């Protein structure tokens, strides 16, 4: 081990959700000796959710993250559906999916124009005060800038109309939704959704022009240091198309072969976690592959989630316009799985288009306006809910007592899955760009760009993964009967 002669702290890391810090250690020659990605925050949801009323959980757990509250809201609501053996009726399910796809659109838009995108849209070494949405508006012009703001607003407005509020929605209840929408609201949603499809296409045009032609982006998308062959995890529907709201968890190996596909409750048993004394986050990995340290490859249990992973685990997209772009993407990389970490940006925009297409299709669905909003509930028990948050697979797992109060809660959160991958990406990037002791803010921003690929939510990340929960999972059918019992 080389002796550390210089320690550089990036604090806080910026343009992300939550608190994070990077510690770089340089050797005598001024090259990277070591790097640590730390999460210095913890709030303890697993603890104070105990004793709460189950039906309050969708509104309590969404306060884990105010950027992706919709993901927690519905992962929670779906866990309650399972706890009460009450899948929602078609009308409620479609209202949820409508809101959820609008959220995915809006959240991905936020990342491209506000968080991760400014590094390329404005430039990686631009003055820090310009590297933000303000600089983006300056660069792309007020006309496109106004469209960005307008369409983020459309996504949020759809969430508000279906969910009661634009941030921290309230309408998810066990077995259904607390309210429907009026025909006027439906008409407004239809017109906004159609516009989001066009805007997602416009955004892909911006990507092709401003990122795929950009020399920094071109460098990193093909640079060996930023290519990490890892396992990938994401939800797929019954045709193995990507799906944000529901499906089975599929895991593929670095060579693209299927490692596992199963309901979320079973996948929980495949994940182990480790703690490190220098961070408040726990680091999950595939138990049977094992922990080999912060290294990639098929012998290392490190897996990744989020847009890059989802496009690696599916066989197709499931909506026509996004499918075309997905084919273009796969052709560019010569087929999947795509291991280039900077491809997250492209994958995210393909999903943004798919989410807009799904929002527009759901807005036309006659089921939205007719039928029951609530399913009859069985007796409370154990339940698992899974959803694809913008940042990756999110699992809520509750055990309710006979009064419907929470006994234990287990949250397997999107960014947590990615912590090992993020740590690895930061280290590889720092090794690549910190040379001979030359470190300025432009160089340090390159280091930060490696984590921005993942669109991390560090407020989400510091939650217990597997291991703290009782050992039995019961999977129930629509009638509340136990159809499967899983022990770990």
């Amino acid at each position: 081990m080389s002796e550390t002669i210089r320690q550089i702290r990036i604090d806080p890391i910026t343009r992300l959700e939550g608190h994070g810090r990077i510690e770089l250690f340089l050797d005598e020659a001024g090259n990277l000796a070591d790097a640590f990605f730390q999460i210095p925050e913890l709030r303890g949801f697993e603890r104070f959710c105990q004793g709460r009323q189950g039906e309050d959980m969708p509104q309590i757990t969404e306060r884990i993250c105010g950027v992706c509250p919709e993901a927690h809201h519905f992962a929670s609501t779906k866990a309650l559906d399972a706890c009460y053996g009450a899948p929602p009726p078609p009308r409620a399910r479609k209202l949820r999916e409508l809101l959820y796809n609008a959220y995915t659109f809006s959240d991905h838009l936020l990342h491209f124009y506000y968080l991760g995108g400014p590094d390329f849209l404005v430039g990686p070494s631009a003055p820090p005060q310009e590297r933000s949405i303000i600089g983006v508006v300056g660069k792309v012009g007020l006309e496109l800038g106004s469209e960005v703001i307008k369409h983020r607003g459309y996504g949020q407005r759809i969430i508000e109309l279906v969910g009661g509020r634009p941030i921290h929605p309230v309408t998810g209840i066990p077995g259904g939704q607390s309210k429907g929408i009026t025909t006027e609201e439906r008409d407004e949603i239809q017109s906004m959704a159609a516009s989001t499809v066009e805007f997602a296409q416009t955004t892909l045009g911006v990507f092709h022009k401003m990122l795929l032609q950009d020399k920094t982006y071109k460098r990193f998308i093909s640079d060996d240091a930023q290519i990490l062959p890892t396992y990938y995890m994401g939800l797929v529907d019954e045709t193995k198309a990507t799906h944000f709201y529901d499906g089975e968890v599929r895991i593929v190996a670095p060579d693209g072969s299927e490692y596992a596909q199963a309901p979320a409750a079973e996948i929980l048993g495949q994940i182990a976690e480790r703690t490190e004394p220098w961070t408040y986050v726990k680091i999950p990995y595939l138990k049977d592959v094992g922990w080999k340290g912060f290294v990639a490859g098929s012998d290392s249990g490190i897996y990744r989630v989020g847009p890059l992973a989802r496009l690696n685990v599916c066989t197709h997209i499931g909506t026509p316009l996004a499918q075309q772009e997905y084919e273009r993407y796969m052709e560019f990389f010569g087929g999947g799985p795509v291991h280039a970490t900077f491809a997250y940006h492209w994958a995210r925009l393909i999903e943004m288009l798919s989410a807009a297409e799904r929002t527009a299709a759901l807005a036309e669905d006659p089921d939205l306006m007719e039928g029951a909003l609530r399913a009859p509930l069985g007796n409370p028990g154990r339940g698992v809910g899974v959803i694809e948050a913008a940042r990756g697979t999110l699992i809520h797992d509750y055990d309710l007592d006979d009064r419907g109060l929470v006994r234990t809660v287990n949250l397997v959160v999107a960014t947590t899955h990615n912590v090992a991958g993020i740590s690895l990406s930061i280290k590889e990037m720092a090794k690549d760009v910190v040379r001979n002791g030359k470190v300025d803010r432009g160089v340090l921003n390159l280091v930060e760009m490696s984590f921005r690929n993942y669109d991390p939510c560090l407020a989400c990340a510091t939650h217990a993964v597997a291991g703290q929960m009782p050992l039995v999972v019961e999977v129930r059918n629509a009638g509340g009967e136990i159809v499967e019992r899983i022990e770990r």
Partner: protein
Amino acid sequence: MAKAKIGVYWAAACGGCDCSLLEVNEQILDVIEAADILFWPCAADAKYEDVRAFAHNELDLVLFNGAIRTEENREMAELLRTRARWLAAYGSCAHTGGVIGLANLSTHDEIFATVFGKQANWPKTHVEVAGRSLDLPAFLERLTPLDTVVDVDYYVPGCPPPREVVSGLFSALIAGDLPPKGTVFASEKNLCEECARERKQERITRILRPHEQEPDPEKCLLDQGFVCMGPATRGGCGAVCPAANMPCTGCAGPTARIRDQGSAMLNTLASLIGTGEENEEQWEAEDAVIAQLADLFGTFYRFSSAHSLFGRRYHE
């Protein structure tokens, strides 16, 4: 007029407050026109070293969201206080502690044991890893709102603050017309004043939970037996949750006339459950209704436990 300088910071928070600033849509362009945002970790690249380099009172206004949960949160509150002319406790966590204040029902060790398991696995505030020195901010024994650690000039209630409130704050900022110290950016009255449901203050004979029955869309939720925090909660949001068939959970904190939101609501509820008759049978009937409240603290102090008269749980 010189451009105003503003800062936005999150302590123990979820990011919803930061996103709520964008909910004003196109107005954000006017804000950018009128003010330079010099510090905003969620969306811009200034670091702590930049904040330390600011002069005393260099920032005209800092919107501080999140509660004080770690030592770093406390240090940043103190630092930003010295750099800000006006400091606003923005959102429920900074204002009253928020949902995460419910952690005060547990000790530091209980929280760590639940999250990290056995003590050998707990993160440490300082550790040497292969000769590298790494620090983490301490997780404090008790979570507190912003005004328990520094002097606060404004309060912006809500989880997160609603669009109209944020827009009003921005309009004042753009006009260079910030109100006097102590201003609360919300209604002085309770939520019921702006709720479209008809309230008759009916007697409650049964507590209903939101999943147990579909509420009548016209009638007051409390009249129907749902525990709606409206009477004890500050208005300003337009009663959006009751409009969505869900009870108010009290995110905007107590009204101007109330010190303790939870006890005020319990008082209101008790008066609706009781008949005033004093006999054994009636007491038993009232007790039976009260016993249906399954989670007193999580219901009545959902967002304000860290601000309540209870403080926290103490252990020998």
